């Protein structure tokens, strides 16, 4: 049996099996889900040859499944993160209700994403895309909270995206008579000059999943509402499917040979306009999401907004259209998958152990959950883009690309602003959950079980490794970029180099920092060990004064109040409001149209006669 079929069969069977077994026990169901995903991953990484494909026909349509280097890159994210997240789920979901439905949809989402990666034609691409979408919808509403508000919104936006994509797909079929992605590309479907609608419609479709600006409003709620072990996948891997699509379209668009079609002056510009538009949309997404992230009191929501912001960077990177920019974007995509996955796992662990993710209710968990904190710390450093971890490499390449290879100077400022403001919420996250005063309510909290710790630590270690050896990821990215049209992508194992050939050895840097760190830490710790006593968080001197028993020492509410006050104008307008008003207006309109059905049979009869008369009046023009 073909490995493509086998992998998907394993996943779908796993979904079904975990659904059935879920009626017996949540743990069994979760284990089945984990095993099926792990088996699929094992097959994926061992059995499939790059470049192999199979063809078959379904419903009279030629379909092709295969694995290319570009898909492989995302396959790493999806199946890697999927395996870890499903392992993590077992404990996370242990005591919840209706787990069978959860695991069923969980595995389905993974299967859908795997299918998207395999799809070499638009139809199977779309089918798996939709499977992924509705399965994720079911998980989002799984908790039963905010079903109407968030679930329906998610589905509406997903549908907008999916249907723009479908429009583009059938247009490609209409114009080039093919459903195969490679054929469409060769025929020039993504060449913006010849075809304005197809790329734009596709970009809208992918932009929704990548939570780009006007279409991002579903994301915070959806990320927050889903069970955390799924949000790992949702934010870490599923959003990357949007990136996958956008990269495919934009890559081919920017690398397309336009020499033949540069017939008039404006045609060249239109690409630049599109590029700038997308870039700015990404930039504004990043800023707005960051601003909203830092006012959140809920750790999970904070991360949700942060995800959107990070996706904004990725969008910007893709929109540069240069080798470095796209590479930065893809690198960020991978790294974001890792650190955001780890962070959501952290939140999930806290949620499971402490019962809530509301940062105003819990704090000071650092001593109770040390491993979780370690993961959080490393991931946050990566998220903030601080050297020497992986996040920095991506950010660095992004800035390099923006400053030296494109003309979007103000976009740099926007990105910079957002990434500076990101420090605020990064700190808020760590402080809110792990630092600060220890609360009475969290006294009994214990470290998360081992099945949750292992995936987290694996991801944390990966982040350190990618920081020192980004080449490990550059390697698949470089081959992937050749698939989307870039030629001669060069890379080094652990050296950042730019267009002038100057370079910085990250391994060297990382090891240096590491050695210095360890030695100084050891120095301080060892020297201080003797006679130093560890004190609780109540034992503070505040310059010699001892706080009263009941004095409020917790500082969690209105955390960044000064900043919010200063940036008040930026919080006034919100895309959410605009969409809501649009929705309300449409609903009123719909309510009006249905008044046509008055309920009076005679009126209906009158409609018939009026229609008849109209038809009779125009019969000679209509039916010649």
């Amino acid at each position, binding site marked *: 049996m073909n490995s493509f079929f086998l992998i998907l069969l394993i996943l779908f069977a796993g979904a079904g099996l975990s659904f059935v077994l879920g009626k017996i026990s949540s743990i069994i169901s979760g284990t089945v889900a984990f095993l099926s995903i792990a088996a699929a991953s094992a097959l994926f990484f061992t059995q499939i040859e790059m470049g192999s494909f199979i063809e078959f*026909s*379904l*419903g*009279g349509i030629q379909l092709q499944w295969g694995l290319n280097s570009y898909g492989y890159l995302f396959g790493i994210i999806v199946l890697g993160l999927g395996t870890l997240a499903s392992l993590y789920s077992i404990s996370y979901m242990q005591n919840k209700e209706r787990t069978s439905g959860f695991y069923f949809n969980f595995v389905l989402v993974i299967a859908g994403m795997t299918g998207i990666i395999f799809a070499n034609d638009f*139809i199977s691409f*779309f*089918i798996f895309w*939709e*499977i992924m*979408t*509705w399965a994720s*919808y079911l998980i989002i*509403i799984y908790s*039963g909270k905010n*079903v*109407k508000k968030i*679930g*329906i919104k998610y*589905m*509406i936006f997903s*549908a*907008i995206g999916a*249907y*723009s994509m*479908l*429009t583009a797909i*059938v*247009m490609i*079929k*209409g*114009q080039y008579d093919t459903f195969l992605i490679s054929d469409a590309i060769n025929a020039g479907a993504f060449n913006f000059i010849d075809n304005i*609608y197809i790329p734009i419609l596709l970009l809208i479709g992918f932009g929704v999943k990548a939570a780009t600006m006007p279409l991002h409003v579903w994301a915070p709620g959806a990320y927050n509402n889903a069970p955390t072990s799924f949000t790992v996948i949702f934010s870490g891997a599923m959003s990357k499917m949007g990136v996958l699509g956008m990269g495919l379209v934009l890559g081919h668009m920017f690398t397309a040979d336009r020499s033949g079609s540069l017939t008039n002056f404006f045609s060249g510009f239109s690409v630049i306009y599109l590029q700038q538009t997308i870039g700015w949309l990404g930039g504004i997404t990043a800023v707005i999401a960051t601003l909203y992230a830092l006012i959140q009191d809920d750790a999970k929501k904070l991360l949700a907004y942060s995800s959107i912001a990070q996706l904004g960077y990725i969008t910007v990177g893709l929109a540069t259209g240069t080798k470095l920019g796209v590479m930065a974007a893809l690198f960020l995509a991978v790294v974001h998958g890792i650190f955001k996955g780890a962070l959501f796992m952290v939140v999930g662990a806290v949620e499971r152990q402490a019962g809530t993710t509301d940062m105003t209710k819990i704090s000071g968990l650092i001593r109770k959950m040390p491993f979780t904190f370690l993961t959080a710390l490393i991931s946050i450093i990566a998220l903030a883009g601080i050297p020497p971890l992986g996040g920095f490499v991506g950010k660095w390449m992004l800035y390099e690309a923006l400053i030296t290879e494109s003309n979007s100077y103000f976009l740099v400022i926007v990105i910079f602003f957002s990434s500076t403001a990101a420090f605020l919420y990064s700190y808020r996250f760590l402080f809110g959950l792990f630092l600060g005063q220890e609360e009475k309510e969290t006294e009994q909290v214990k470290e998360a079980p081992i099945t949750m710790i292992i995936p987290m630590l694996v991801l944390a270690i990966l982040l350190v490794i990618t920081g020192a050896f980004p080449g490990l990821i550059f390697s698949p990215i470089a081959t992937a970029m050749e698939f989307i049209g870039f030629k001669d992508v060069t890379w080094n194992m652990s050296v950042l180099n730019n267009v002038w050939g100057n370079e910085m050895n990250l391994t060297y840097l990382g090891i240096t920092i590491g050695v210095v760190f360890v030695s100084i830490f050891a120095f301080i710790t060892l020297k201080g060990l003797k006679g130093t006593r560890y004190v609780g968080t109540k034992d503070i001197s505040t310059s010699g004064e001892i706080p009263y028993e009941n004095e409020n020492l917790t500082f969690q509410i209105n955390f960044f109040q000064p900043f919010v006050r200063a940036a008040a104008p930026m919080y006034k307008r919100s895309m959410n409001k605009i969409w809501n008003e649009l929705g309300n207006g449409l*609903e009123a*309109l*719909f*309510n009006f*149209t*249905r008044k*046509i*059905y008055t309920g009076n*049979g*005679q*009126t*209906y*009869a009158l*409609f*018939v*006669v*009026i*229609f*008849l008369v109209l*038809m*009779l009046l125009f*019969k*000679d*023009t*209509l*039916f*010649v």
Partner: protein
Amino acid sequence: MVISPVHYIAVPLLAAFTIPLLSKYIHKELARIVPGIVLLYSVFVSIVLMMQVSEVGVISEKIAGWSAPWGINLMFTPFSGFLASLMSVVGFLIWLYSYNFKKIEQSQSQKYHILQMMMVTGAIGIVLTGDIFNLFVFMEITAITAYSLTSFYRERDGAEAGFKYLLIGSFASVMILLAVMILYTQLGTLNMAEIAQNAHLIPTPLRATILVLFLVGFGIEAEMFPLNGWAPDAYSQSPGPIGAAFAGIVVKAGVYALIRVIFTLFDIHGAYDFLIYGGLITMIIAETAAVAQTNLKRMLAYSSIGQMGFVLIAFGIGTKTAIIGALFLMFNHAVIKSLLFMSGSYLTYNSLNKKISALAGLGKKLPIVSLLFGLGAFAIVGLPPFSGFWSKLYVLTAAADQNMLLLIMAILAVSIIEIIYYFRVVSTLYYGKQEDEEIKVQKPSINAMVSMLILGATIIVVGVYPDIITHFLNNAADMLLDKASYIQAVLTQNIN
């Protein structure tokens, strides 16, 4: 005895006339069982004939020994045969579902089952007949059963819905009758093949008038806006399975008639545009009206109307792919809407009122029914891998081939609206806040469950492997477009 298309009609009629006697003098239960056997026989006939027709091409059946155009003939082509098979299968499933539907009182079940069986028979007759007046007669058979069944329940406002339906339906029959009349004066024949052959001889103004009368007349049956005032009421007030029958059988027959008139009888370009625009308006109005519905069945009704609008659009595009898509849509609509009505009627039956908000929490009490309803909802909005997706894909592909970008966008915009209201119901079902703790839940009977499960399985199987059905659709579309061979098949039968 050789299986022939006339069995579709003759056997149910014989049964219908016999049932009153059987149930009175032999056994009461026979009144319910015999229609089932008859419908099952129809399914059997369908299978046999569909197998034959793929070899022969067209099965033509003379009635009373007179060949066309002197007598009436039944034409079992891949196209009409497909629809007839679909109707017989759906008809049988509806019977299975309603075999001991709790709301139907024992003494009434005889009438109910006769009417339901005759509804299917009438619709099959419409599809099979080759004679325009005979089509009218069968349409009346279907209509009368539909009026009666719409107002079947006394507790509901069925009579009101039935009367509206009857009022508008009478208009339809008057117009069709007028059209047939004028047609007869011009060509002196009632055989559709002969009409199709000679339609170009009719003077243009008369031809246009005939066409207008046909379009409006059959448009009423096909639920075209603004002729569909009866439809939401009729769907929502009739018993649950009859709502399914409306969607799966009655309206299909109306659309068939419309398509037959436009494609075969008068091949006029304007009529195709009429279908597209009419379908589009129907779809938009109906789907938008569905959004704000609070009553589940009424919502399903509007959705059904919208789907029929979509079917009309697909036929209006008129290319082969579009027709395959349209037929696929009809198939999907029949299967999925039936499932939705069937499961929906259990859901509403178990809620305090028929309001959507009252369905909250039924997902737990009626897990399988709710699951099936959810499956239907997912399928009808066209989510892969369910069957609804493929039909949408075919139609959109066809539209894209014709460069109808705006049409595509309109269709998809409407699909988004569909998603909104269907998903609202599904999420209420599973996650809504329950108002009453203890409502005694009426579990579906085993036969109803079997019927719904068959439909659900069909949705998934066809969705995953559409080749099961595309072969038939392909032949049917070829047949519909190949007017000449239809005419030839009818008019040469007097040779053999």
